C-alpha cells in the first residue's frame, strides 16, 4: 500500500527586488561583483528551487518590490523570471504588500498567464483543482492597511487544502509597521491548513497546527538582516500539510562577528588572530556564499588600547586576514569598536590628572544630555550641510541615551589616541 504522492508548494515573501544592499563600504579587494544584483539572483534562486523541487505552486506574500519603480527594468526582470516558471508549468499567486501596494506600483506590467494576482478590493479564493488546493488572499490597495484583512477572508473550503496568503505583522513585531493587524486566534478560526504570511523579514514558524509561517525575506539587505534568508517549502500529502522546511536562497549572507578583546591581548596581533579564526568559522557557516560581515571588537576602554589608535589600520588588518582565510568569499563591511564598561569601572575614571578629567567629561556627555548639548552643537552645522540622507542614524540623536553613549565613547577613544602619550617622554 503506497501513501499519497507528495505535492510541494513554495512560499516566499519580501523579495524587494532591486533594492540595494546597504552598509557595504567598498574597499580595495572587496568582491563588488558578487554583491551586484543580489536580490535578483536570490529571485533566480527561488525560481530554480521551484523547478528543482518540482513545485506545483509558488506563493509570494507581498513586497515583491521595494516601492515605486524608478526603473521599469525591475518589473521586466520579474516578468522574465515568472516566464521561466511558466515554461516549467508552475503557477504563481502573488499578493501585494505595503511596499508594492497598488497605489505605489500601478498595473503597468503584463504578467504571464501563469501568474495570478490577488485583488485589492476583497479577499478572493483561487482554486487549483488539479492540486486540490484553494488559495485565499487579498492584496494591499494602499501603503498603510490598518484594518484586519484576515477577518474578511472566506472560511475554509471543505475537502481541500486551504492556504491563506496575507501580508501582515500579526499583532506586532519589533522593527516592522503593524499593517493588516490580526491575531493568531483569528487566523486559526478561518480553518485553513497553512497561512503564508509576509512582511516580517525574520523567518518564524508562529504555529504548526495549523501552520502559520513567516518565511523571512529572500535576501538580507543590511547588517541588521543577518543569517540565512530564503523560502519555505511546504510538503502536502493527501489532504494534509505534513512538513515545512527552509531553503536558503540568499547570495550574500550578512553576519556580525563580535570579537571580545581578551585581557591577555598584548597587542593588536592577538585580537586580529582571533578575528581570523572567527571569520573562518563564519565563512564556513555561510556555505560558500559571500559573507558580508561587520567585525566588532568589544571590550572596556583599557582593552581597546591593545588594538592601537589607528582604526583604519585595524580595519585593514582585519580585511587582510579575511582575505587570507576566505579569499573573496568575505566582505568585511565595517570594522567597529564597541566600548563596554570597564570591568572595575574605575581605572580611568579614578585618574585625577587632566586626561582623566577629559575622559570623565566625555563619559559625562555620554550619560547626560545637559552635558552633551553644548558639545553636540559643534556638529549641528555639519548635520545641516550634509543633509538627512547622509546623517540619519549616523549623527547621534541627542535624546537617545544609547546614541549619546556610543558617540561619546568614540570621542573618548579619539581623545585617548591623540592625547594619551607624550612623544619622547622619559623620566
Amino acid at each position: 500500500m503506497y501513501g499519497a504522492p507528495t505535492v510541494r508548494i513554495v512560499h516566499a515573501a519580501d523579495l524587494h527586488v532591486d533594492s540595494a544592499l546597504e552598509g557595504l563600504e567598498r574597499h580595495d579587494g572587496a568582491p563588488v561583483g558578487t554583491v551586484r544584483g543580489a536580490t535578483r539572483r536570490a529571485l533566480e534562486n527561488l525560481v530554480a528551487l521551484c523547478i528543482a523541487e518540482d513545485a506545483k505552486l509558488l506563493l509570494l506574500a507581498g513586497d515583491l518590490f521595494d516601492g515605486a519603480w524608478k526603473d521599469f527594468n525591475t518589473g521586466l526582470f520579474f516578468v522574465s523570471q515568472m516566464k521561466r516558471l511558466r515554461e516549467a508549468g508552475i503557477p504563481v499567486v502573488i499578493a501585494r504588500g505595503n511596499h508594492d501596494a497598488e497605489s505605489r506600483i500601478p498595473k503597468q506590467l503584463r504578467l504571464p498567464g501563469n501568474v495570478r494576482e490577488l485583488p485589492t478590493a476583497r479577499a478572493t479564493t483561487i482554486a487549483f483543482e488539479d492540486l486540490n488546493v484553494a488559495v485565499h488572499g487579498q492584496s494591499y490597495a494602499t501603503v498603510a492597511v490598518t484594518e484586519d484583512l484576515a477577518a474578511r477572508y472566506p472560511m475554509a473550503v471543505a475537502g481541500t487544502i486551504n492556504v491563506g496568503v496575507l501580508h501582515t505583522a500579526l499583532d506586532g513585531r519589533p522593527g516592522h509597521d503593524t499593517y493588516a493587524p490580526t491575531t493568531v486566534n483569528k487566523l486559526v478560526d478561518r480553518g485553513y491548513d497553512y497561512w503564508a504570511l509576509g512582511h516580517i523579514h525574520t523567518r518564524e514558524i508562529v504555529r504548526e497546527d495549523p501552520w502559520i509561517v513567516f518565511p523571512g525575506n529572500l535576501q538580507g539587505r543590511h547588517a541588521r538582516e543577518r543569517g540565512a534568508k530564503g523560502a519555505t517549502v511546504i510538503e502536502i500529502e493527501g489532504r494534509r500539510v505534513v512538513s515545512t522546511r527552509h531553503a536558503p536562497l540568499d547570495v550574500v549572507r550578512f553576519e556580525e562577528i563580535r570579537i571580545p578583546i581578551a585581557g591577555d591581548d598584548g597587542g593588536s596581533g592577538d585580537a586580529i588572530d582571533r578575528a581570523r579564526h572567527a571569520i573562518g568559522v563564519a565563512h564556513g557557516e555561510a556555505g560558500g556564499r559571500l559573507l558580508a560581515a561587520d567585525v566588532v571588537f568589544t571590550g572596556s576602554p583599557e582593552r581597546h588600547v591593545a588594538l592601537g589608535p589607528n582604526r583604519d589600520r585595524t580595519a585593514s588588518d582585519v580585511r587582510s586576514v579575511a582575505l587570507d582565510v576566505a579569499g573573496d568569499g568575505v566582505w568585511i563591511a565595517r570594522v567597529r569598536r564597541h566600548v563596554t564598561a570597564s570591568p572595575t569601572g574605575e581605572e580611568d575614571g579614578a585618574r585625577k590628572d587632566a586626561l582623566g578629567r577629559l575622559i570623565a567629561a566625555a563619559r559625562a556627555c555620554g550619560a547626560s544630555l545637559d552635558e552633551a548639548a553644548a558639545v553636540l552643537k559643534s556638529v549641528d552645522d555639519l548635520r545641516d550641510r550634509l543633509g538627512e540622507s547622509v546623517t540619519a542614524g549616523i549623527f547621534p540623536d541627542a535624546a537617545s541615551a544609547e546614541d549619546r553613549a556610543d558617540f561619546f565613547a568614540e570621542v573618548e577613544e579619539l581623545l585617548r589616541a591623540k592625547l594619551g602619550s607624550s612623544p619622547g617622554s622619559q623620566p
Partner: protein
Amino acid sequence: MSVRIRSVLFEPFGALRGVELDFGPVAGPLQVVWGPNEAGKSTALRGIVDFFFGIPRDSSDQHERGVELRIRMRLVVDDDRELDLVRRKGSKDPLRCGATDAPVAERDLTRWMGGVDRDTFKQLHALDHVRLREGADSILRGEGRLGELMLEATSGATGLVDRLQALRDEADALYRPRAKSTELSVAIEGWKSATRAMGQESLSHTAWNEQERGIAETRQRVMDADQKLKDARIDLAKLEKLVLLEDPLARLRHRRMRRAQLGPVADVPEGTALRRDELAHEIATASGEAERAEAELPRLAVELESTRTRASAVSLDFDRAGAQARSVAIVALGRAIADATTELGDMGRVRDEALEQLGPPPEGLAWSARAVDARSLTRAETCAAERRAARIALAAAERAHVEAEARIHAATPTDAHSAAAGRDAQELASALAALRRASAAASSLDGLAAREIELTQRLGVALADVGESDQDALAAASVPHPAVIDDELRRRGASEAKLAATERDLLGAGERAARAVAELASLREGGAVPSAADLAAAREQRDDAMSQAFEALDTGALDVTRRALRTAEQSQRAADTVADRLRHEASRVEHFARVDNERRDAQQAASALEIAAAQAKRARAAGEAEFATAWPALAVVPLEAARGWLARRSEALGTAAELSATRTRIEEVRSELRQARAHLLVVGAGSNALDESPSKLVIDAAIASAESRLDQERTAERRREERAGIHARATSDRDVAASNLDHARSIDDAADKAFRQAIGPHQLGAPQTTEEALATLIALAAATRETRRHDRLASRVGQLRGELAVAQQQWSDATSRAGLEGVEPDEVLRRAEVAREARADVPRIEEAIAQRRDVANAARARADRASGRLADLAQRAGVPDDHLAAAEQRARDARALEREIAGLESTVIEMTATATLVEAEAHVRGVDFTVTSERTEQLRADIDALEASRTRDLHDIGAQLTYLEQMERGSGSAADLAETAQAHLTRARGLARRAAVARAAVALLEREIERHRAEREGPVLRRASDLFRLLTAERWSGLRVGDGDDGGPEIRCVRGERERSVKELSEGTRDQLYLALRLAALEHHARAGVALPLVLDDVLVHFDDQRTEAALIALAEVGKTVQVLLFTHEQRVAEIARRVLGQGSISLHELGRMP
C-alpha cells in the same frame, strides 16, 4: 593620598647590583642624587618607574640571562603607613611583599598610585631638560594662551597646542564646507553621481510603451509595403508576358519565310551522307587487312620447320633437372670430403699432444679404463668444494667454542646481592613519591597562606565597599536582579521626566498667568475711563454752547458771536473726544475680558498642574519607598549606583567563597603533611627531627637523601642484571658452538669420503692431495674429450665418400640413356635446354598460321557486306551516291525550320494563355510594345523601392525586437548603479561619523581647556607667580593674566611696572616660566588628589649658577608638598644645593663616586 619613596634597592637591575638609595624617614628635604656619567643614574630612574608600573618583558636592563631583576622599595603612604614591596621581572606575581615574599595584587599598588599609569606618570611626575625645553617652546607656539598653558602644565602633555590643532586639522581633512577634495566630499559626490547615472540608466514605463508602439507602427508599414509589392508584381508579370511575346512573334514570322524559300524537299534521313562515308571506309579497311594476313603465311611455315628440327636433337625422356641436381651434389661432396680430411689431421695432432702431456698410463691399463667424462669430473669438483667448505666451517666452530668459554669465565658472578635489596628500593621509591606530593603540598601552603591573607584583606575592602561588615549578612540579604534596577531606574526616569514636564507646564502656565496679570495691570493703568454720563454732559455742554452761539448770532454782535462759536466748537470737540474715548475703551474692555479669561485659564491650569505635580511627587516617593521596602539591602547606595553595588557585592561574595575554599585547601594540605611523617621514617629521617607536621625543608632534605639512596640501589641492580644477562648469553653461545663443532666434523668426514669415492674409479695411483687429484682428473678429462672428437670426424669422412660414389653412378646412367655419353656435364645441360625451348615454340607458330588465315577470310567478307549496303543507300535516296550529301543538307534545314516554327507557335499560345494560334495572334494584335516596356521598367523601379523600404523596416523591427528582448530581460545596470550609490553613501556616512566625532572631540577639548583654566586660574596662577619670582631670583615680580590678540586670556610676566608677553621672553626665562607652571600645577594636583614623587632628571643643565640656586630654592619649597628627587650628573648642582639649602633642607645621595 600621598606616596613617598622611603628607599629603593636595586638587587640587581641593569648595572646596579645591591645599590640602595635611602631617602630617609622624614618628608621634606630635597633629595639630590648625584652621579657622574655611566654611574647608573638613568638606570636608577628607569628602575623607579619600572617598580611602579612593571618591568617590561624586553627590558634593556636585563644584562644577563637567568638573573632575575628585582627592585625593592619601601614606600610611605599617607605619611603613616610603610609598605615594603619587591618588583620582579616576570609575568607571575611580579609584585611581592618584601618581608614575606607573598604576592601583592597590582591593583593595590595602582590604587595607592591614584590610578596613574606609566604614561601619565612620565608626563606628570617626571621632567628632564628636553621636556622642559619642549614645554617652554610650546608656550611660545601657543602664544601664552592661558587655557592651553594651564592644561598642558597640569597634564604634562607637551605640545597640547599642536595636538589640538592636529585634531582640528583631522576634522577639516574629513570635511570642509565648499571644499571638494575632502574624503567626505568625494564620497558624497560619488553618491550623487551614481544616483544621477542611475536615473539616466533607468527605463521608464513610457519608454517601454513607446518601444512597443514603434514596433507596431513599423509592422504596419511592412504589411502595407507587402500589399503594394503584391499588386505591383501582378502588374509586372502581366506586362512582362506581353514584352516577352514580341520576340517569339518576330522569330515565328522569320522562320516561316525561310521555310517557304526552301520549297519542296526530298526526305533524306538524317545521317545518310555520314553512313555512306563510313561504308566506303569500311570496304577499304577490310580489303587491306586481308592482304596483310595473307602476306605473313610463307614466313611462318619456314619458322615452323626450323623449330621442329631443334626439338628433336635430345630425347624426350631426358630429366634435365635431375641431371643438374646430381652434378651439383657431386661437386659439393668433393669439397666436403677435402675439408673433413684436413680437420681430421688437425684433431689427431691435438689428441696426441693431450695424451703425451698425460704421460704413459699405468702399466696394464687401457685408455678406455682411465677415461673421464664430464659428469665424473663435475662430481669430483663438487666433492672437492664441499670438502674445502667443511674444513673452513670446522675451524670457525672451534674458534666460536673457545670464545664462548672465555666469555662464560669472564661473566661468572662474583658478588651476588640479596633479593632483599630490591625490595628496599621498591619501598623507598613508594615513600619518595609520597614525599614529593607532600613537598608540592607544602610549597603550595605558603602561596595559600599568602592568598588567604590577600583574600582576607580584599574581602575586608570589598565588604567596606558595599557598606557591610558581615559577609553572611551580605550573602543573606535579598537583592534584586539587575533588570529590576534597570526597570526601577527607567520607571523613576519616566516619573522624573513626567514630573519635569508637569513642572515645565506649570511654569509655563504660571508665566502665562503672570503675563496676563501684567497685561491686565497695564490695561488698568490706562487712566480714568469716561462714563456715558460724561458723554451726555459733554453733549449737553456742546448743545448749550451752540444755543448761545445762535443767540449771539441773533444779536448781531460780531465779537460775541465769534466767542460763542469758538466756545461751541470747543464743546463739540470735547464731546467728540469723549465719544472717541468711549469707543476705544469698548475695544479695550473687550481685550481686557479676553486677557482676564486667559489669566483665569492659566491659573486654573496651574492649579491643576500643581495638583498633578504633587501627585507625581507622591507617586515617586511611594514608588521609591516601595522599592526601598522591597530591597532594603540597597538602602546603602543611591539607585544609580545600585548596579555597581551589586557587582561589588557579587565580587565580595566571590572573594568570600574563594577565601573559604582557600582555607579548606590549607587544612587539606596540613593533613597531607601530617601523613607525610610516616614516609619520612621510611626514608631514614630521624624521628627526633620530625614535628607532627614536618616542614617543606625537612621533607625536601629527606627527598634529596632518599633520591640519592634510591639512585645507588638502582645502579647496583642494573649492573647485576647486566652481568647475569651476559653469562646466560655466553653459556647459550658455548652450547651452540659445541653443537656446531660436532656437526662441522661430521660434514668434513662425509665430504672426504665422497671425494675419494668420486676419484676412485680413475686409477689415480698413490694417495694425493685433493688439489693434485683434481688436476689429474681434469687432464684425463681433456684427453678423453679430444680422442672422442677425432673418432667422430673420421667416421664422418667415410660416410661422405660413400655418398659421392652413389652420385657419380647415377650421372653416368642418365647421360648414357640420353645418348650423350662422354659429353661434358655443362654441354649436356645446354643441349637439353635448347631442345626443350624448341618443343615449346612449335604449337605457337602453328596457331599463328591458323589465325592469319582466319583474319584474311573475315576481312574479305566484311568488304563484301559494306559494298552491298552502300548500293542500298543510293537507291533509297534516289540520287547517285555522290549527291547524297547535298540532298541530306536541304532535308535537314527544312526539318529544323519546321520544328522551330512549331515551338514558337506553342510558346505564343502558351504566353497568351489561348487555345489556338489564331486566338493568340488576336490577343496581341494592336499592342504597342514600346509603351509596355517603359511601363514595365517603372513597375520594376517601384518594386525595388518598396522592397528596400520593407527591408529597412524589417531591419528596424529586428533591432527593435532585439532591444525589446533585452529590455524584457530587465537590465540590471540601474540597480547596479543603485548598489554603487549605496556603497558611496555608506562610505560617506562612515566619514561623516568620523568628522562628527572629530569635531565633537575638538569642542569637548576646547571646553575642557576653558573649564580647566577657569578652575585653576586663580590658585595655580598665584602659586606659579610666586615660584616664577623665586626661580628668577626676583628679577621678575610675578605673573598676571591679560588679553591676548584674539581676545582670550593670555599669560603675561610682570617686571616692575612693565609686562611682557611670552614672545618677548628669553629662552631661559621661558624655561623658568614653564617650570614654575609645572611645579604649581603639581602642587595643586597633590593637594587635590594624589601626591606622587616628582622625578627630575638633569633638569637644570641649561641653568647658570644663579638660576640653579633659585631653582633649587624653589624645588626645596615644592618638596614640602611632594617628594622631589633631583637626579643630576653636574657636580656644581650638588655643591650649590649643599651650599644654598643647608643640611636640613637637602639630602644628598651618591651613585658612584662622591665629589
